């Protein structure tokens, strides 16, 4: 675990980082993100002591990094920058093996390791190892940069905006590969970017920074759903969540505390209740709020006897949803089954909400409305 304890950084009297504290967990891919000047790269470079701290302490596995030898510390970490930071005068092989060579590892071990790493990023060793970095495409260079960081089998890998100079398609596929790689090798990775899409795509946790402070340090889902403040919300983007619909849950849409009635309520009362609330569906529940059935408007109007009890005119519930179900699944169900109302019940079958066609439409349409206003502001 990498622990930041009230770490401060000053440059010529300017406070760049102001007493930040955080725990970066082992094996997780943590993304540091924020607008330029927020201190994210500074934070990263303090981990491998490319920059000294001005105050506070960074501790890795209970050892303060100040107590460790600089070079040894860095060799325990991989470091990847734009274009991988490859040395143009060395072949790909020399680039990958440089630290292992300096550590005097056995030759065969190094060679085998290099072959394994090349396989890991799907690059043909025979084709690439004897070539020079400028002969490779940006994406290929970046892959080499990543496996060079892995070569010495470090515990931690630091990545400083490694993909920012790549075209969008290459970037996207490298992001996928990185996630896969991370799952495979299980290293602690710390990744700096200014691209929120990238962060959400690859991160286990995201640390949002601004002006030397950490605003929020949480999972992507939590940040999308519950931004800590207005800045985070606007930085994440109000509608960012629409780009990741799997994060949108039924509870974000449902009408909370829907209008219900018990089984013994008369039909006339039901109609009054609907009219008062401008709704066309009533959920019938028992005394414990457990769902028993639904009364629709049509069924109610067909009833000749105004005193007939709800129990008699309700129909049983075939489709319902759980508050944490993904909205994508529910929409699929609505479309397939051609239903207009989906009650939402919790683990104890208690009614907690209701999805109706009209509230789905109005909620979904909001993203377009706000997008337009956002655009106007930009223009």
């Amino acid at each position, binding site marked *: 675990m990498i622990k930041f304890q009230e770490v401060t950084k000053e440059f010529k009297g300017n406070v760049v980082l102001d007493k930040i504290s955080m725990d970066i967990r082992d094996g997780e891919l943590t993304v540091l993100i924020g607008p330029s000047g927020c201190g994210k790269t500074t934070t990263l*470079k303090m981990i*491998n002591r*490319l920059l000294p701290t001005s105050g506070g302490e960074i501790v890795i596995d209970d050892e303060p990094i100040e107590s460790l030898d600089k*070079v*040894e*510390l*860095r*060799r325990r*970490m*991989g*470091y990847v*920058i*734009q274009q991988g*930071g490859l*040395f*143009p*005068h*060395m072949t790909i092989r020399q680039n990958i093996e*440089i*630290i292992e060579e*300096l550590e005097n590892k056995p030759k065969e071990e190094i060679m085998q390791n290099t072959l394994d790493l090349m396989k890991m990023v799907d690059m043909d060793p025979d084709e690439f190892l004897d*070539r*020079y*970095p*400028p*002969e490779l495409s940006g994406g290929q260079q970046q892959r080499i940069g990543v496996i*060079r*960081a892995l070569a*010495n089998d470090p515990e931690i890998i*630091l990545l400083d905006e490694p993909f920012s100079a790549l075209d969008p398609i290459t970037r996207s596929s490298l992001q996928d590969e990185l996630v896969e790689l991370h799952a495979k090798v299980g290293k602690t990775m710390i990744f700096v970017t200014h691209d929120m899409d990238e962060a959400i795509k690859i991160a286990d946790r995201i640390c949002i920074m601004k002006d030397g402070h950490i605003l929020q340090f949480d999972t992507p889902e939590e940040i999308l759903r519950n931004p800590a403040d207005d800045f985070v919300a606007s930085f994440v983007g109000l509608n960012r969540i629409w780009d990741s619909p799997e994060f949108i849950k039924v509870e974000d849409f449902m009408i909370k505390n829907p209008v219900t009635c018990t089984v013994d309520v008369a039909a006339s009362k039901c109609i009054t209740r609907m009219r008062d609330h401008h709704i066309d569906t009533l959920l019938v529940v028992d005394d414990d709020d457990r769902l028993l059935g639904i009364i629709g408007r049509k069924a109610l109007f067909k009833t000749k006897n105004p005193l007939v009890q709800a129990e008699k005119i309700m129909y049983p519930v075939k489709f319902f949803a759980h508050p944490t179900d993904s909205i994508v699944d529910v929409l699929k169900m609505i479309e397939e089954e051609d239903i207009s109302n989906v009650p939402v019940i919790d683990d104890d079958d208690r009614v907690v909400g209701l999805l109706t066609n009209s509230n789905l439409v109005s909620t979904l349409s909001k993203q377009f409305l706000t997008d337009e206003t956002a655009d106007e502001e930009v223009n």
Partner: protein
Amino acid sequence: MITLFNYMVAHASQIWSLTVEHIEMTAIAVGISILIGVPLGILISYVKKLDKPVIGAANVVQAIPSMALLGLGIPLLGIGVLPAIVMVIIYSLLPIIKNTYTGISGIDPQMVEAAYGIGLTKGQVLKKVKLPMALPIIMAGVRISAVTAVGLMTMAAFIGAGGLGYLVFSGIRTVNNYQILAGAIPACILALLVDFLMSLIEKLVTPISLQKQFGISKQALKKSRKREKIVLIVAGVLICTLIVTGIVGSIQKQQKTITIGSKDFTEQLILCNLYADVIEDQTDVNVIRKENLGGTQVCYEALKKGDIDMYVDYTGTLYCDLLGHNSVSNMSKVYNTCKSELSSKYNIALLKQCNFNNTYTLSTTKAIAKKYNLKSISDLKNYDSQLKLGCTLEFQNRGDCMPALKKLYNMNFKKVVGIDGSPRYTALKNNEVQVVDAFATDGMLMKYNLVVLKDTDHMFPPYYAVPCIRQSTLNKYPELQKAINSLSPYLTDKVMMKLNYEVDEEGKEPKDVAKEFLQSKGLI
């Protein structure tokens, strides 16, 4: 063209040995300036505060004329190979320091940070990243230095270090264009060759990835690299052998030798060879001949410092220039004063003076002498406003020459043109000047059939040639005195003028002229 070719063939062995000398000295000088310049460049790229002072100093040093640097260096370093190499090192430093500095500072800082970031130490970053990436630029600097050094090394002859400059200098003195070309052409070829070899090195140290050429595959590039490597290895081995044999050779020369120097005009070369031959014949002392040293100052300082053991100077020069007396015309007074003062002040012994007085004279063509009715120096006064004087720089500055002329006769020439060496006779012939200074024994007087104006007022002091030798050398090899004194009486005005003529006009080598004379007199 054919005569040039013949000359070069006839002197092939001399040209070759001078070329070898030239290569040795240049290689050593450039090698050392790399050893100094590259670390210095690295240093100032790390310690930024030093960059301006160091580069500034290198700039200033390079702005000093090379002749001046050599002259100033004599009291410190003496004459010969060492000061020549030091001078070339000083001039070679700037491009090497500058390019090393630029090369290293120009590396993308991100690249350097990446190198530190992945865990290289400071030394490893320098060795594995900074130096290899800066190497092409450093080599470009070395290339400039090396090519300049080849040219600059011709100046070495000025202080007796030999090299191809020797041919150029003596060629200029004796108006021997073939000799000049025999020195200049190999020097030029050498410079081009060095440039070519350096360009190969520059190419080889550039990472293959950074020198892609259109239409050439990587395989072809690798192949041509292999060929270039072979060429360089061969050249490297050759240069190393030259240097090693040179050093071994110079070590072998150590026993029982003395060095005789000479100034840079014909008579001095002949005198140097005459005395050297006599000494080598009559004693078992070997003589190293350092001919063509830059001038009185160079020889005198070298003698004081012990770089040479002996040279021949003239009494008037010793008396006025070196000892600072006012000129007088009493021959024996001059000799005796010089002898006692040099001995007591500098431990330099004057041996028996020669029988010729190579004093300054002013001379002119027969036609002009007739036109203006010139017989003695004083006659010049009547026409001084119409006449242009072509004279050596030394003549202009010596107290007993130009200033004395002004003092004694209030002489004001229409113009005074400073020309060194034989070209002033050419100027006289072309009527660009009408009067020149000349040495009384100059063979050119004979060649051009000139009129020597009589010094009726004894304006010029006596200039009898006299061997000056270090007392310590004389103590070590007392037999030298007898050998040297045996020769001096034979050298009269007439003899000297004839010997000079043979070299200057007939194009013989001073060495051969000396030998022939000694043999004809039965001295060897």
